[in-house]
């Protein structure tokens, strides 16, 4: 029997990036009704920008900040300038539109940076400590801590602040909330900002933990969407549990002989099973 502990630790770190991304997706969906398929592409862009600044000799904290700033402002710009034009179309069309954004970002990243094998190095990679006989790098610990912190912060924000209350109202019923005077565009804009920032942080961490590639990071949105599906795009705790389960299962399967090569299918299996489980009772939608 192989030693699963190192895989568990690395899986927990990857899972944390999924959780960060998924929390962004859920918050955005609740507030604005858009499932953001470009979450991964935004993170990839943030990682590439940080990488370029560090490569040119810029200070690292500035590089990370710039990356997150770019992903945040792009998300805000899309949410403010383009998303409202689709406000009255189907939820599925609004989600497909973000696929368009993902394609544009993917093309830009391929054009500017190409698909060379790269990795974003964080200074915390070399720091490490021992815990129950396993060496844990500081990056992994930070990823985990950030995931926990941001989830708690977002939950507290939604529960306690006035803006959070408005977002919850929008999630409940958009038309009624607008009628009652909830500033729809303002709440939407903040939701896009939160999700863009989370996407950036998640992308930078994932580019360090795995590799810096436009394709890989863009499609890291799939485990995040799976986690959001497990949370039914509404429950943050369930989303976190889903994200952690997906990341950890994926990593734990690595040393298992026969099913190891199929471990990348874990997010799909989780999402499909969750969707089927949710729809186990036939409900007839009148429309």
């Amino acid at each position, binding site marked *: 029997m192989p030693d699963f502990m190192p895989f568990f630790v690395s899986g927990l770190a990857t899972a944390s990036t999924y959780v960060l991304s998924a929390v962004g997706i859920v918050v955005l969906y609740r507030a604005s009704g858009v499932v953001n398929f470009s979450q991964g592409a935004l993170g990839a862009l943030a990682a590439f920008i940080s990488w370029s600044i560090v490569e040119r000799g810029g200070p690292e904290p500035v590089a990370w900040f710039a990356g997150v700033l770019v992903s945040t402002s792009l998300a805000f710009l899309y949410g403010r300038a383009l998303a409202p*034009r689709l406000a009255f179309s189907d939820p599925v069309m609004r*989600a497909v539109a973000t696929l*368009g954004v993902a*394609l*544009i970002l*993917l*093309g830009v990243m391929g054009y500017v940076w190409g698909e060379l094998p790269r990795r974003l190095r964080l200074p915390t990679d070399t720091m490490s400590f021992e815990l129950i006989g396993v060496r844990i790098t500081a990056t992994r610990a930070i990823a985990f801590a950030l995931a926990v912190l941001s989830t708690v912060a977002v939950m507290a924000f939604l529960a306690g602040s006035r803006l959070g209350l408005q977002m919850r109202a929008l999630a409940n019923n958009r038309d009624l909330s607008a009628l009652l005077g909830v500033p729809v565009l303002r709440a939407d804009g903040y939701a896009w900002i939160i999700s863009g920032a989370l996407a950036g942080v998640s992308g930078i961490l994932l580019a360090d933990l795995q590799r810096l590639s436009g394709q890989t990071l863009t499609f890291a949105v*799939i485990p995040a969407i799976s986690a959001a599906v497990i949370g039914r795009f509404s429950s943050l705790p369930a989303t976190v549990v889903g994200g952690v389960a997906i990341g950890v299962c994926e990593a734990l399967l690595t040393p298992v002989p026969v099913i190891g090569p*199929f471990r990348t299918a874990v997010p*799909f299996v989780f999402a499909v099973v969750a969707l089927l489980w949710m729809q186990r009772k036939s409900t007839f939608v009148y429309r």
Partner: protein
Amino acid sequence: MTDETLTYSLPVDTRKVRLKWLVTALVAVGAVYVLSDAMSNYWLRTFISAAALAIGSLSVSLLFAQLGMVSLAQFALLGVGGWFALRVSHGLGVPFELAILAGGIAAAAFGLIVGLPALRMRGLYLAIITLMMAGAIQVLISAFGFPDGGAGILGKSSGARVMMARPFLAQTDEAYFRYVAVVLALCYGLVLLHVRGRPGRAWAMIRRSEVCALAGGVHIVAYKVWAFALAGFLAGVAGGLLAGGVGQLDGSAFPASQSIMLFALTIVGGAYSWMGPLIAGLMLRAFPALLNDFHVDGNIATIVFGAGLLHALMTAPQGIAGQLQDATKALRAKFSGKSGAAR
């Protein structure tokens, strides 16, 4: 006094339409014949895969335009069809047509599996579950690879890769291009037959309102499942044609991202028009090839497609096909000196 409404009950003049379609078909046949002789080998191959992908796009537009369903798994089904076509062709040595049919039927079965959850899901969740299935198929294909003449169930050979046998009638690239064009026309015919017939009416009613369809005695489950199976069949045939064009398939060529691209370009091309899938096929293959000819980075194509998708969703729901039709209508109105409102 006669009832004038009855006189004008037919929205289009059937005699005129028949002539128009006849001319279109003749022009298409002529174009295929001339094009296949005039093109270089590179462009011939590009157009072969463009025509095959037009069939794939047809399957997306069938689900989207007829039932309003977003399926992001169709390109993965192309891979499934290609896999089975290659396997049958190598394993049994059957004629190309049978191999393609086998690929189509296998992909239809997979399409059924994809479609089963669709009976209870709609909209966003359907899009997500089909995307997840496309991802799962991608994992399977890249783990197993495509059969290339070896023994065993997977048909992987350790030595030289064997090419898939082309149809008896179409050994050269020129002939194969014509062959694919004929299959494309047959697929259009198959879809037209469905849309004009009983299934098309049932789909239209389901799309309009499931409650009304149920009240009208339409078997919703059967017709939805049938749509998915038909779309899967088309995708499988397209996959078999792709395999025949190159002789083999690359295990990394069917990622979920391509399924997304196929859906996006079907929307950009115009899912509601017969021209849409053709435009989508050309954009998927011929447009990057054109950029390559001009030594432009292929990533530019991805950027253009993304921007095109946003544009289509926001301002042109009928896609390029719809804009072309509007343009010809406007031109015709201008030349005949009538207002644009005239039919």
